[in-house]
């Protein structure tokens, strides 16, 4: 019954996601380098972490995996242009004739000792990014200005931000004073054999030769990144392409839909990408 209702209206879940305990529920993640060890060390010392890397290379997935591994709840906030500090920290609401304070996601994470993940932090306005400063140094405090309070962070609380140095303009970079408070982990698109593994795992129905071709195509397409492609072909896009193929779309068309159309409007670039795809798939 519950399953049926969920399918009907989606699943309502609290923003603080309790970790799944069993092995089966583990998010799939394939380590590229030593990022798991670095993250664990940072967590041990409760240092804030910054994940850097292009879109679709697995930052978010990595964090889901780490949260599961460390058995900590995860609070994810996707940052956007209009995200104000009260969106993070909390605000007063009217309820009847009284006002009540409602904690924002960051406050809740601080109190619950969760891992708080601010995704694409540069998108948020700079005034909202500075409120995380006291959380990121030895103080580990969150000031609630409106309430006139300061919250000492739960001892298991950890702050993680992600940040894609690629597509923002210079104007939208993080402040240096913010940046230098973090342990940085660089991500890039995975190595060829790892990428194959990932795609095979994400799209188990796809046969091995197709996976190989897909990965080769993706790697080739990435060479065009500096030639007008703002975002290179991501592993996620490859997974999408694989899914499209499995769903019965011709490989060339699937790649066009997943790898070419979304990333460029430049006809010549699109043609060059198609050339790569056809070389691999159209025989």
């Amino acid at each position, binding site marked *: 019954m519950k399953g049926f209702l969920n399918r009907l209206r989606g699943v309502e879940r609290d923003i603080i996601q309790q970790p799944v305990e069993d092995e089966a529920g583990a998010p799939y993640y394939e380590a590229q380098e030593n990022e798991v060890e670095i993250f664990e060390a940072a967590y041990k010392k409760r240092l804030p972490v910054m994940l850097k890397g292009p879109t679709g290379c697995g930052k978010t997935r990595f964090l889901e995996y780490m949260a599961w591994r460390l058995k900590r709840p995860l609070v994810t906030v996707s940052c956007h242009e209009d995200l104000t500090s*009260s969106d993070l920290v909390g605000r*007063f609401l009217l309820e009847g004739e009284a*006002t009540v304070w409602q904690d924002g996601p960051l406050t809740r994470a601080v109190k619950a000792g969760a891992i708080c993940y601010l995704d694409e932090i540069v998108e948020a306005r700079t005034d909202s990014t500075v409120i995380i400063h006291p959380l990121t140094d030895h103080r580990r405090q969150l000031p609630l200005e*409106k309430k006139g309070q300061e919250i000492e962070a739960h001892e298991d609380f950890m702050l993680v931000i992600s940040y894609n140095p690629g597509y923002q303009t210079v104007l939208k970079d993080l402040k240096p004073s913010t940046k230098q408070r973090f342990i940085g982990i660089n991500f890039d698109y995975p190595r060829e054999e790892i990428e194959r593994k990932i795609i095979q795992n994400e799209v188990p129905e796809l046969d091995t030769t197709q996976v190989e071709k897909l990965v080769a195509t993706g790697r*080739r397409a990435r*060479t065009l990144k500096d*030639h007008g492609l703002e975002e290179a072909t991501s592993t996620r896009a490859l997974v999408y392409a694989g899914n499209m193929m499995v769903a019965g779309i011709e490989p060339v068309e699937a790649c066009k839909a997943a790898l070419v159309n979304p990333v460029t409007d430049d006809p010549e670039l699109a043609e*060059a990408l198609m*050339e790569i795809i056809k*070389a691999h798939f159209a025989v």
Partner: protein
Amino acid sequence: MTQPEILAAIQQELADLEQISFVAHRDTREALGAIQSQGDEIALEWVRACKALFQHDRDAGKAFIRGSRAVLDASGEVLAWTNQALSFLQWRGSWKALDGFMGQLPAAYHILGSTGEARWAELGIAWCGRHLESGAAYFRCPVVELAATHGIAGVEELVLPAEDLFSQRRLALATYLPGAIRVRNLLGVEAVQPWAKRGADILQAGRLRGEAFFKLESEESMAMLLENLPGFRTPEHQRLLQLILYAWFGENFDLLDGNWSPDKGRAFVETDGASLYLPIALPSREEAILALLHAAGHLVFFSFERRYIEALFHEVGREHPPLDADKRITWRPLFAAFGEDMIRFQLIFDLCEDLRVDTRINARVPNYLTRLLAAAEAATLPAGAAAAYFELARQTLRWIASDAPQQVEMESWRPLLNESATIVDAFRIANLLYADTNLPPMTLAEREHAYLPGRSPNAARPVYPRRELDHAEFGTGTEDQDDAVKNTEIKPNPEKREIPKQAAGEDPDFDIPPEETTGSGGRVGVGIPQPAHVTGHARGAEYSEKGKPYAEWDYRDGRYKRNWAWVQEKELTELDANEATRLLTQYAPALKRLKRAIQTQKPARMAPLRRQFDGDELDLEAAIGYIAEKRAGMSPKANIYRQRVMQHRDTAVTLLADISTSIMQSSEGGGRVVDHIRAGMLLFAESMEEVGDPYSLAGFASKYRDNVSYYSIKGFDQRLTPHARAVLGGLSGRLATRMGAAIRHAVKGFDRAPSQRRLLLILSDGRPADYDDGGDERYLHEDTRMAVKEAVDAGVHPFCITLDAAGSQYLPQIFGPGHYVVLDHINDLPKKLPEIYLRLRK
């Protein structure tokens, strides 16, 4: 008339002729015998014609009489052509035409038959009526060439369109025909008409240029022809090809124009070891891509690696020849040992090397061999000796495309498939294969047909030896001292050679390339230093000298002329800092007012503005927060409004000034026009500094389509320096106004502008015009209109500010209503210019 009477009449006519000319009489008598075989009556007609023509014009008569015998032999009749010849009596001085007519008649009967001949003569005689010279040219043109292989239809397809060209553009047949025939031979009849139309236009602009065009001697004529070549046109896909190469090989290759034209035979992609040379068109897209990959493969897989080349020469026991002045090497001595049979060996060698390279490419580019093979299978086998080579190439390709199974006859090729094989192995194997080949000998003319689609002669050009491998990878013991010299030094890329923009004669050395100071010596290996080379460079260099080509719209044909207007970026060298200072002082009060006005409407930030203290709407979220906080006993700020302001997007602007000669005239407002333009641009620049929007300043002038000068005064990323101010102070007028090309170039310049909204302000004092528009005002108007349209499509808003009081007559058509302003009082210009911008950017 009875028979004797006829004979008597003939004798009478002959006697009359004798009275006039001894020679004519003698010639007529000679031919008469043959003519009389057709009947006496006919002979009489003919003799009468002889006399009439001779009396009309001695030369015409002679030509007729002397030509008759041969014509009779060809036609077997007399009356038809005699009557045709008599039509020439209508015109004085028609002997040239008649001479040609008689000369071509036998051929006409032979090729066109008698009905065809009649039509041929009819067309020519009509031309004589239009323009005698054209008629003469027509009849003098060999019928074989006129008809090509299409009989009378061939004549008509060539000559009928010329009638319109003559009546509309006064294009004479003598000018048109020889070129038109060649064009038809090269590109087919469809190409003739656009080519001739363009030629007629050029002829109107200048006789010499026009004639050179029709003789196919001028570059523009060839360019025009190439424009109409069928197939996959490489210049239009340059970027795509570059991207493809980059994707597969991770290298940026220089793609240069290979200077190929259809009369040079088959189109090949060639390489000189440093760059790839593309023909302007290849038969198909697939073939173009394969050819490109193949040629790049040669570069990437070391066909031209220096040490391998040395080893090759070592192999034949020769020192390789000294490099030429450009430090290139020629392969010729390698093949010298084969003497007459050189081509046969060359082809076998190419076959081996191509096989090796294609195998390597296939490892990089999936399915490359499959595609190559598909193209080869689809191709038709060439005729003659080339067929054997072509088939062999196809066979080897099939073999490697099917993963090289064990086959006795193929085993000698196998070493080439090895990853460590080099061009030296290819050479050795070629030698072995050559030793017991039964391939037929080849001529140079046939050679080009021996190559599969996508492949090309490898030693087509002298090559720049590449140096990519280091000692570790290759050790033949021939390493020498100059290894330290960097690879870049032996890759002189003609296109990248710096040529100073302003070639106005200030610097006499401007076309001398930088001197060699690296001391590498002139040769690879043992070195004899070569002197610095000072003469002009190979093809490709012309691009940077001629600037950047843009298409131009020809309203008469309703199409673009590709690469028509050439824009060169130059710098203005007349500086006048004093004048700039003087103007700034003079306009100081105006500037002050402007700056104040600007400050009041400075762009604040990206809208919509939230959390304002006042505004038109409530910021709901802020309001709830406000009330809630107030209830909670706090005293929040009442910033609960949202302002719906017009979005002040950042705008980039280019002020493009027409600095043609006319601005040097004095204006009715006192002073010269140029003084006001200087002040206007200065004030504009100063105001823009205050506004803070990115802006650039430029001027343009032109003389002919290939000489449009674009003077960049300040770029988007540059500051307003004292130098830029001095340039504005020293602004002066020159030449004419080819506005379309300048607009196109300015629009390109916005690529460097950081902003979303792009505004192109054009400051002009008159209509677009140039020296070569043949007095056709509408031509450049229409082109400018198209340039404006292209600009809008590219996201740039052009706006014209004109000082020409008559501007409202033509500007609405060019820029569209509301996109221009006519300044009635020139004195207003300095003040108005910044104001107009501020109004526009709102």
